[in-house]
């Protein structure tokens, strides 16, 4: 078996067996260490973005109160908050973090197929983060073009950060894409080539499926961002006219000849929409595994779940222009993109039904990871349904520039994936660190975050219906808005600050657990997947000791009838356990 041979290449593992502190924890080629490096960096930069959002909320809730938030600062905060959260936190954490940790462990391999390139991927990612953060400190500050960086305003006077900020942003994105490509080649190759014996594709846990498909989307879609970043850099630095129209600025002619800002939008959203699913698919996969494990039930409709992931991935490439309804596109195009957008709801709805049916008559354990997983179902349904509204051209046009859209996308791709991130961290924490966290603190963290985010985003939909425009620094005296709109905005700000502060509970839990948390059981959730069957917790370099595991069953043998335990790990041979559904009807 060729792929087993790769999974078990002891001789290659020895080559990068860590010898010193530096090679073990800094220049490490171990996928688990790289995963933690990715995770810590992403969370640190995510906290920066969280602070930025708090400052935006301060301004929106209490305008004319904080002298240090100027209109320029406000736009810089918006831009950096959006870009950091979408790319440098969520993409990096799901694929670089969880992808790195879970793929080799769940597939039963010793490491990624190309460990050196994997290490490079992290360091190049860190470089992209540093370049991005440096833009706060250059003359003119970070770019304030909005996370979509639309030209011409992204590089024209009047927008903050047109000297250095936008250049650093574009360079940072290009560097990030290089890092992602190195990581992505590893994830795809490891999934296809380094699975252990018996681990067929259709026995892989859904977490791996989600990460695998998201990686493919990323590999095909990120080039669109790279192409647009390079072309905008050229427009900015040497006055080409790829995107920049013939325009006069401050009475002067900057020399552009008639480029197309819409072209940029096409390229940006050709990346931007798959990007939503680059974040969502790993979340879908992980949440499936959390629900199944903590409900002690096999995932409902496994094959349907796999094919829904693949179908969503494919469809995500033909919906991008639904972000551009307001650009004045041909109505027939609008009709086409509205149709494809509504079609993508079908496989997505299948997934939601299957999650709920997995819970049906399950033996539900409301532990912290499960709370976050169930919380995700709520927020995702809410965010998804408002997406159906906005997918229709006639509804999108009046709502597009209002807080309705802000509420929609924060619910569907802000709160939802972040709930999964927390659920996943709590779920795999015992394996990653070998210690347990404080359950009570974790539950407080969940409830305050979950209810708090509803307090932020539910009223925001209402503000959108009232017509409160997004992207504004301050509303001023606006006749069509009642005074209560500002009161609601202040209440949203209080909720947002509350939720931001609540995250301290998570960090306290992390520190407490590392400092004096009890030692974790190797398989505290009685889970079936391979990462819980490692000989050591946390797993050592090479993961599996002398022999690779051998897989005999799928990842969802929970509550199998006539079997003494309510779970059968994937590496338990068929003849030592009454088999699952092949011997009778499964609950």
């Amino acid at each position, binding site marked *: *078996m*060729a*792929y087993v041979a*790769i999974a078990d290449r002891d001789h290659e593992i020895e080559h990068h067996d860590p010898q010193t502190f530096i090679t073990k924890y800094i220049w490490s080629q171990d996928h688990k260490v790289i995963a933690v490096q990715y995770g810590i960096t992403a969370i640190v930069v995510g906290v920066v973005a969280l602070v930025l959002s708090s400052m935006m909320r301060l301004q929106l809730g209490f305008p004319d109160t904080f002298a240090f938030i100027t209109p320029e600062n406000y736009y810089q905060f918006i831009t950096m908050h959006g870009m950091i959260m979408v790319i440098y936190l969520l993409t990096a954490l799901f694929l670089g973090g969880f992808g790195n940790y879970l793929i080799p462990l769940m597939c039963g391999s010793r490491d990624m*197929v190309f460990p050196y390139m994997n290490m490079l991927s992290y360091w190049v990612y860190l470089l992209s983060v540093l370049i991005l953060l440096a833009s706060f400190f250059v003359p003119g500050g970070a770019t304030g073009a909005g996370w979509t960086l639309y030209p011409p305003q992204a590089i024209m006077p009047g927008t903050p950060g047109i000297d250095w900020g936008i250049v650093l942003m574009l360079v940072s994105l290009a560097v990030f894409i290089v890092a992602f*490509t190195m990581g*992505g*080649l590893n994830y*795809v*190759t490891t999934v*296809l*080539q*380094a699975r252990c014996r*018996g681990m*067929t*594709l*259709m*026995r892989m846990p859904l977490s791996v499926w989600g990460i695998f498909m998201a990686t*493919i989307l990323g*590999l*095909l879609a990120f*080039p*669109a961002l*790279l*192409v647009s970043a390079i*072309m905008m850099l*050229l427009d900015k630095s*040497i*006055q*080409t*006219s*790829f995107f920049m129209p*013939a325009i006069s600025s401050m009475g002067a002619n900057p*020399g552009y*000849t*008639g*480029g*197309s800002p819409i*072209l940029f939008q*096409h*390229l940006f959203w*050709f990346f931007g929409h798959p990007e939503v699913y680059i974040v969502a698919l790993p979340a879908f996969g992980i949440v499936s595994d959390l629900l199944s494990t903590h409900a002690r039930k*096999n995932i409902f409709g*496994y*094959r349907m779940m796999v094919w829904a992931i*693949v179908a969503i991935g*494919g469809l995500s*490439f*033909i919906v991008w222009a639904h972000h551009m309804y307001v650009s004045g596109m041909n109505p027939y195009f609008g009709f086409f993109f509205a149709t494809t957008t509504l079609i993508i709801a079908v496989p997505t709805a299948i997934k939601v039904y299957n999650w709920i049916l997995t819970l049906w008559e399950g033996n539900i354990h409301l532990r912290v990871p499960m709370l976050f997983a169930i919380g995700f179902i709520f927020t995702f349904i809410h965010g998804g349904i408002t997406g159906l509204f906005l997918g229709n051209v006639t509804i999108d046009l009046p709502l597009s520039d209002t807080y309705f859209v802000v509420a929609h996308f924060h619910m569907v791709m802000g709160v939802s994936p972040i709930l999964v991130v927390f659920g996943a961290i709590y779920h795999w924490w015992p394996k990653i660190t070998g210690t347990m966290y404080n359950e009570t603190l974790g539950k407080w963290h969940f409830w305050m975050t979950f209810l708090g985010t509803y307090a932020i985003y539910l009223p925001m939909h209402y503000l959108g219906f009232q017509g409160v425009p997004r992207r504004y620094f301050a509303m001023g005296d606006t006749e069509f808005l009642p005074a209560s709109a500002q009161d609601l905005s202040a209440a949203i700000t209080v909720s947002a600050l509350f939720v931001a502060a609540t995250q301290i509970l998570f960090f306290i839990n992390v520190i407490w657990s590392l400092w004096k948390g009890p030692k974790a059981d190797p398989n505290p959730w009685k889970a079936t997947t391979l990462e819980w069957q490692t000989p050591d917790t946390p797993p050592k370099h090479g993961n599996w000791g002398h022999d690779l595991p051998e897989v*005999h*069953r*799928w990842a969802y*043998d929970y509550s199998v009838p006539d079997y003494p335990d309510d779970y059968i790990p994937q590496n338990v041979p*068929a003849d030592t*356990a009454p*088999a*699952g*559904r*092949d011997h009778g009807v*499964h609950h």
Partner: protein
Amino acid sequence: MEFILVIVAAMLAGLIGWLLKQSFNTEPWIAGAVDEDAHRAPLGANAKVVALTTLLAVITSFFALIVSAYALRMELGDWIPLSEPQLLWGNTGMLVLASLAFQWTRNAAVQDETAKLKPGLLVTGVLTSLFLLGQFAAWLQLSSAGQGVTANPSNGFFYFLTVAHAIHILGGLYVWARALVRVHGGAPAVAVRESIELCTVYWHFLLLVWLFLFGLLLNT
């Protein structure tokens, strides 16, 4: 954007077709041994082949996106078609010969003829370098004739496409150089065979990309 859609659809169709074959009629909930051969990894089961194929898909997407942008941008009023320097024909010839030379070297490696590897690699390197030098000369020719990057959007795309292609060739030359160093150090054919085979595929791929781009530039 139709072009990138067709390309992405074709690539995804390939992947989905293979996945269908893997998953069709399987019953994952049934425990027991599986026919490992039926679940063999794709493409003859070699990690480097899979990684290279994936990388080629990424590069294909990259160039297809630039071509899509090209098609959209050329419809606008300020577009003046660029008349490409005749030198590009010669450069194309060099790249075709480089690809042939790499194929010859690859065949030698497969047939375990170690002695042919060094001359084969050297000839490939020289021809490829001539292509790059020729491209550089073409850029100089154009800019000295007043056809710089900013003279017209068609120029901008010409430079963007050709420089992007040249950078991919340079990346290939890095791997080529590593193979050459190993051959020079006395490595036998069997040790460098895989590297040379993969490089050959990469060279053929970049030749195809160039032929497509050159055809596009000539006809628009």
